[in-house]
């Protein structure tokens, strides 16, 4: 079965610092990759997704992620974080075939301090 690993449980950054959250998955075939975000008190929402094509994907609010197939990775990046980016970030994956559910990582809590 596929699994998703998020390396950092809690990341604390100062405003304007650069962000990179790690995500690795285990699945040998073609996959769809997602990053979801959960702001405090809000529901999970899609940040960005990769299905195929350009491995550098741009999402909302200045976030981007790079799919590196050889490393089974899909790391999330942002050049300069803001206080409003404080949230929980979840990487998720499902095989690009049939009707398979999303498998989520455990999440990374990001705290941005002024």
């Amino acid at each position: 079965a596929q699994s998703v690993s998020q390396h950092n449980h809690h990341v604390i950054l100062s405003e304007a610092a650069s962000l990179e959250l790690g995500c690795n998955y285990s699945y040998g075939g073609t996959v769809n990759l997602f990053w979801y975000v959960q702001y405090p008190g809000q529901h999970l929402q899609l940040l960005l997704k990769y299905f195929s094509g350009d491995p550098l994907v741009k999402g909302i609010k200045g976030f981007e992620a790079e799919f590196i197939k050889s490393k089974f990775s899909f790391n999330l990046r942002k050049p300069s974080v803001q206080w409003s980016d404080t949230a929980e970030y979840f990487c998720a994956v499902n095989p690009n075939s049939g009707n398979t559910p999303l498998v989520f990582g455990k999440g990374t809590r990001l705290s941005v301090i002024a």
Partner: protein
Amino acid sequence: DAGVTQSPTHLIKTRGQHVTLRCSPISGHKSVSWYQQVLGQGPQFIFQYYEKEERGRGNFPDRFSARQFPNYSSELNVNALLLGDSALYLCASSLWQGSGEKLFFGSGTQLSVL
């Protein structure tokens, strides 16, 4: 437009009881999925329903069941509650079934089993 709505938002039950959680998908969405999110973990897939039929089931015991109604709303039922069932239960809807579909999540039902 209304998003995915779940009721109730919070629920307290005792061991052995049963519970019914409800979900209304976004208008026009035909697929509903249920996820369990235990504190400190990512969401874990329980069920997917599409056009009123079960299309996927996660690794959960038979105490968990669900159904989807003609208006595409859904119920998740859990019988013989255990302390370990305490979690946030998330409902997500999408237009279609399929591995690449974007999921829209509700705010969840927080279930506490005492």
